[in-house]
């Protein structure tokens, strides 16, 4: 008999294990995949962004195509909470504010749509990095259509949905269960969503850092937040050891961008256009002047990280420079000679490459005129077919602001495609992408015609970088450039492709000699404890462009010194399989705000960037059928009744056990 029962159980187990081993409570939900979520960041005084409730926020779906359709649910007289799904073109500040003030709204889903073109979409401040800029900078609305929503504390979870099947699933469910007879919503089953984006940290950066530390009674130390940051990149045109006492021409750009939704930070106009221009300029300049010959200046290329969050990278460099420890504190060469660090006073001219797009008129922004700036302007104007126009007074938000904040006398210029307002209408948003930069990749590997169109952004950036490289050459050497070197438009084409469309591009394969994911990188700076792979790739690319070729074939092992780093890289993008040994003066420095390193830093002082990002567990979005109120009450009533009845029966059986069960042994058990 026992054998028989066990056999049955075993068979049942085997049959059951072949079916889907999913828990019943999970079977009630339909997970949605193509999601990106808004999350929480904090600065010294405030929290910004979104968080769901700890167990996820739920609400009844309301799918709309126009935000005006939302009035219907806002005016409903019931106790239900709703999660509207709106198309991305309706995701405006006005709509969000209207939803936030209503108690009927528990969350928001923004779905991708191709039906309308969006003329402008930027939720960054109208004056980015407002509180870290020089006085007067924000008298202009640089980011004209910026709503500032990125800097607000949004009390509901917001998700972005970019998978059309998932959007359709929500729409179908909404039409089937919700989109009729709204007055009876409370009495029937409805299609609902559960949004999970619970944020551990709250209030502000000092609070979450303090809570995460081991102070006082706090037994169960959890990490609440992390400082934003990554690494800056620097490379010099001439090896830094040869040019100890020289002044520097700094050529800089930024590497990071931002947007409201996690992992969707394309950053085409800012930073990729400027970044590619800098890399291309470096590559041409190295070919124009391969060796140091008694010039008055050296050139240092600097790429800043975390500039979207109150200039983390540039503030750090200025801080390190003022402590005389940039790029590396007291480092020595192999000949035991100490190389002097670069200080603010060593900057002869600072050139920042900001957003670049195809415009007839480029602008040179500067705060105060100086001899160096005038010289550079004349050179740029000559070498770029009178394309440049001077714009003095207030400079746009740029890394130069950090330098001028410390020393207003530094001669600095910002090269940009815009005058008083940005040309890019998608600053720091999910729409700052290749399409909106008018970038069309020319696939040279498949296409037999290897010609980039004359009116393309690639051609434009190549021209600008050739002119810029020529100007820097003439500034440094004080000679006229008579050579024929110019920027390689195919390389520019490839660089844009690397950062905007496909990380597994030829440049990355050449410098890193491995395969990458066939997708663009996310250009959000992210937290300092996790290094971004894109930063190291940009560094290697800059190293490749500014390095000296040592020999054909792989480098000898263990050659690296503090100043020189040796890399095995391909000869060129058209010859990926060749290996050559390159000697580069490129390295990384920390891009973490000094606020996190200074002891007892006054967090509300506003001197340094204080941005941190909350820790979270997971982002998820699920759809389910929410039962009606009466159904819920019935379920809990039945449960309670069964529970009470079970207790009653057990009590009864216990009391009557002597009658009910015949006892074999009548003697009581010994205590």
């Amino acid at each position, binding site marked *: 008999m026992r054998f028989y029962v066990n056999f049955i159980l075993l068979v049942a187990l085997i049959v059951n294990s072949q079916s889907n081993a999913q828990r019943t409570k999970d079977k009630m939900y339909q997970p949605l995949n193509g999601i990106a979520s808004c999350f929480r960041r904090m600065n010294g005084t405030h929290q910004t962004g979104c968080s769901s409730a700890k167990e996820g926020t739920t609400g009844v779906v309301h799918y709309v195509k126009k935000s005006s359709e939302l009035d219907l649910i806002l005016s409903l007289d019931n106790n239900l909470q709703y999660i509207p799904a709106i198309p991305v073109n309706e995701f405006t500040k006005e709509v969000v504010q209207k939803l936030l003030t209503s108690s009927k709204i528990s969350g928001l889903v923004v779905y991708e749509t191709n039906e309308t073109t969006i003329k402008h979409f930027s939720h960054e401040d109208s004056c980015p990095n407002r509180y870290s800029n020089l006085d007067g900078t924000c008298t202009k609305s640089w980011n004209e259509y910026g709503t500032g929503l990125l800097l607000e504390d949004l009390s509901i979870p917001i998700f972005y949905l970019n998978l059309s099947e998932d959007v359709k699933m929500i729409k179908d469910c909404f039409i089937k269960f919700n989109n009729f007879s709204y007055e009876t919503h409370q009495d029937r089953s409805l299609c609902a969503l559960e949004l999970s984006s619970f*944020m551990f940290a709250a209030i502000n950066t000092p*609070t979450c850092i*303090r*809570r995460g530390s081991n*102070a*006082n*009674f*706090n*037994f169960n130390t959890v990490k*609440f937040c992390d400082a934003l940051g990554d690494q800056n990149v620097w490379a010099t045109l001439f090896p830094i050891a040869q040019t100890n006492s020289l002044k520097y021409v700094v050529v800089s750009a930024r590497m990071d961008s931002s947007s409201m939704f996690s992992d969707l930070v394309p950053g085409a106009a800012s930073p990729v256009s400027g970044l590619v221009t800098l890399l291309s300029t470096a590559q041409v300049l190295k070919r124009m002047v391969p060796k140091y010959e008694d010039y008055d200046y050296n050139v240092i290329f600097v790429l800043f990280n975390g500039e979207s969050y109150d200039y983390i990278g540039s503030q750090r460099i200025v801080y390190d420079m003022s402590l005389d420890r940039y790029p590396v504190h007291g480092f020595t060469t192999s000949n035991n000679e100490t190389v002097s660090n670069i200080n603010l006073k060593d900057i002869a001219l600072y050139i920042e490459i900001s957003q670049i797009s195809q415009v007839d008129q480029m602008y040179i922004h500067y705060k105060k005129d100086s001899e160096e700036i005038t010289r550079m302007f004349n050179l740029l104007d000559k070498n770029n077919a009178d394309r440049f126009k001077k714009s003095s007074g207030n400079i746009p938000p740029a890394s130069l602001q950090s330098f001028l904040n410390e020393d207003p006398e530094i001669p600095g210029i910002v090269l940009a495609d815009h005058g008083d307002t940005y040309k890019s209408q998608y600053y720091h948003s999910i729409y700052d992408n290749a399409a909106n930069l008018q970038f069309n990749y020319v696939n040279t590997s498949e296409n037999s015609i290897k010609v980039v169109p004359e009116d393309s952004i690639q051609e434009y950036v190549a021209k600008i970088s050739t002119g810029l490289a020529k100007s820097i050459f003439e500034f440094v050497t004080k000679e006229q450039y008579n050579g024929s070197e110019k920027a390689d438009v195919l390389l520019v084409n490839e660089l844009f492709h690397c950062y905007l469309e496909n990380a597994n591009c030829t440049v990355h394969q050449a410098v890193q000699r491995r395969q990458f994911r066939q997708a663009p990188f996310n250009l959000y700076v992210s937290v300092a404890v996790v290094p971004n792979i894109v930063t190291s790739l940009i560094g290697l690319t800059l190293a490749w462009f500014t390095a000296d070729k040592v020999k054909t074939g792989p480098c000898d092992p263990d050659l690296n010194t503090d100043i020189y780093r040796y890399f095995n890289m391909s000869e060129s993008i058209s010859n990926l399989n060749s290996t050559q040994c390159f000697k580069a003066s490129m390295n990384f420095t920390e891009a973490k705000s000094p606020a996190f390193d200074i002891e007892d830093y006054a967090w509300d002082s506003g001197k340094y960037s204080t941005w941190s990002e909350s820790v979270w567990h997971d982002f998820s979005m699920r759809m389910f059928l929410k039962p009606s109120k009466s159904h819920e009450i019935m379920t809990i009533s039945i449960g309670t009744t069964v529970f009470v009845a079970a207790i009653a029966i057990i009590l009864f059986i216990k009391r009557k056990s002597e009658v009910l069960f015949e006892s074999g042994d009548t003697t009581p058990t010994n205590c």
Partner: protein
Amino acid sequence: MDLEKMSNENKLDLCKWYFKVGFVFLPFIWAVNAIWFFNEAFRKPAYDEQKQIRKYVIFSGIGAILWGLVLTAWIITFQVNRVAWGQFADDLSFIIPLGS
């Protein structure tokens, strides 16, 4: 321990001991005392020590209730003001709740 098997004298000693111990910031001991000896103090037929036991039971009960009120008031105050009190409240916390 079974009160049924104890002498009345021992019961008094025990009740008194519990009452005294409760003064060392142990309101739960008072609560236990009040509940445990309630039958002895009020329901049992009169015996010599009962009057004293009754006294200790009453005072233990009052003490426990007072403690309960004070603790409840503090807990409500603390939970309501935890976020506003900032570092002070964090310093008093053993486990800091996530997300607020």
